[in-house]
């Protein structure tokens, strides 16, 4: 029997990747991108599993649904009831949380969680790589500005300016980017 799965994910590219990993398992997957009226939409769809980024602030809204005591409402249990601590730990490390309808067979859940955990681990890696690239670019910019300041102030070449930055960084046991950043800040104060 196929499961009805809801993915709460504002980023369409990420949502598509999760769908791609779950669709081959034959499940019926719906994406909710908007956090507004989240509780009402989840109730309408009445899913077996809701997958949401662990850091999504809307998680607390789903927590509330898990407490719904109205027998007519579909009860949502917590995170695999936390009985499978290994799976829960893996999921948390990957950054995905799951809300599961009460009484769902553990083995049927396992397939979905394995796929979701793999995808979220990939997102995490991508996010880290993106962050590293962004930081490298920013450092690059600051170093270029610091070189410019030195070239103008001391009338030296670009290579000499970089050599000076590098030597200062080595002498002080700091990173070139840190020295450059301090220089740019100081120059900003003095100008």
């Amino acid at each position: 029997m196929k499961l009805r799965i809801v993915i709460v994910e504002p980023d369409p590219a990420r949502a598509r990747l999760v769908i791609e990993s779950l669709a081959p398992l034959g499940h019926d997957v719906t994406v909710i991108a908007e956090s507004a009226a989240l509780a009402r939409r989840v109730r309408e769809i009445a899913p077996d599993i809701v997958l949401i980024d662990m850091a999504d602030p809307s998680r607390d809204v789903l927590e509330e649904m898990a407490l719904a005591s109205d027998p007519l409402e579909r009860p949502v249990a917590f995170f695999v009831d936390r009985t499978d601590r290994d799976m829960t730990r893996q999921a948390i490390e990957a950054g995905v949380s799951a809300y599961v309808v009460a009484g769902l067979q553990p083995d049927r859940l396992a397939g979905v969680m394995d796929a979701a955990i793999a995808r979220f681990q990939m997102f995490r890696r991508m996010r880290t790589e993106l962050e590293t690239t962004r930081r490298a670019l920013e450092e690059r910019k600051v170093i270029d500005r610091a070189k410019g300041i030195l070239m103008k102030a001391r009338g030296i070449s670009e290579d000499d300016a970089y050599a000076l930055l590098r030597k200062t960084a080595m002498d002080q046991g700091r990173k070139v980017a840190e020295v450059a950043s301090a220089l740019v800040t100081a120059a900003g104060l003095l100008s």
Partner: protein
Amino acid sequence: MIVDQLRVGFVPLLDMAPLAVAREMGFAAEEGIALELVRASSWSMLRDMLVFGQVEAAQMLAPVPIAMAMGLGGAATRLDILQVLSVNGDVIGLSQRLAERMRGAGYSFDFRDAQAARAALVAAAEGPLRIGIPFPFSTHAELVSYWLAGAALEYELTTIPPPQMVEALARGEIDAFCVGEPWGSVAVDAAVGTLVLPSRAIWAVAPEKVLAVRHDWSEDNPALTGRLMRAVWRAARWLHQTGNRGVAADILARRDYVNAPVEVLERALSGNMVISPAGDLRRVPDMIRFFEGAASFPWRSQAAWFAAQMAERFSLDRAASIAAASAICRTDLYRRNLRSAGADLPGASEKLEGSLHHPTAVASEQGQMILAPDAFFDSRIFDPLASH
């Protein structure tokens, strides 16, 4: 000196101040703790991080560890409440439409009298009210339920993450909210809401956030637990000194912490609240407290009050709920670890809640200590030992 790494989780709110101060003003370092503060974007995330060991300690809504001890909410891990991080500090806000109707009917928005505010709200409501709260287990949920119990008013509590509260009010998804600062002031500045009460008007001494750890962690690390408690307690004492509040606001405004304007953070810290988009000012001396009046002591009777309220709301056994809540308040660790730091310690670990209308001297280890007023808005007295 041995330096231990400790990760402590928090949610961006004004009341995480003792943690930020413990790190930034060197109180953690003094105890040989390299404190790493880890920001969480929701209370459920923070709870999971603590339960599954991604942080050693966490700032928590006081009712969260209590609810867990009562078996509510699925996560069956025992937590300990080491100390209270903050008392009071929430506000109740209304949509401009509701506020205008109340104003039109002659209500003065004194920001003080919860009985009068309730009567004005009941008269102005045009139908069932939808009230936003940050989490199902929260001071906010319990205080609002207590305040509106028995009023001729239909209402529904709905969970909305604090940073989304302003937008939900603007879009008309909710008619009112109860939220921790600075989010109430942010709603005022965005001209979408008017503040009607500080939470202290409902219960003058509601413990708001607590410092919680896993029970097995505090058992395995007794010395480190004590060092963490002293660092946070000294930070709270520092925050109590009025001259330090400007610096505190500067620290909290940083992007890594609350990421809100200094001026908005200062309102609750100084007690000078702006309650309406028109700029009406109200003075609330104990808008939020971190230290004075034995604020950080984890009174069992206060936990018992939350347990009794939640037992009622979720149809659980009252006596068993109170016993479970009392057991996680580590008054024993508080006494053992903070005596040497100079904390004055009350003679008892529980008291009648709601009996003090003025600051009152009571017996303590050093002779006498002053307890802050703890009255409820309806003058009821809560006795944790009574059967109902």
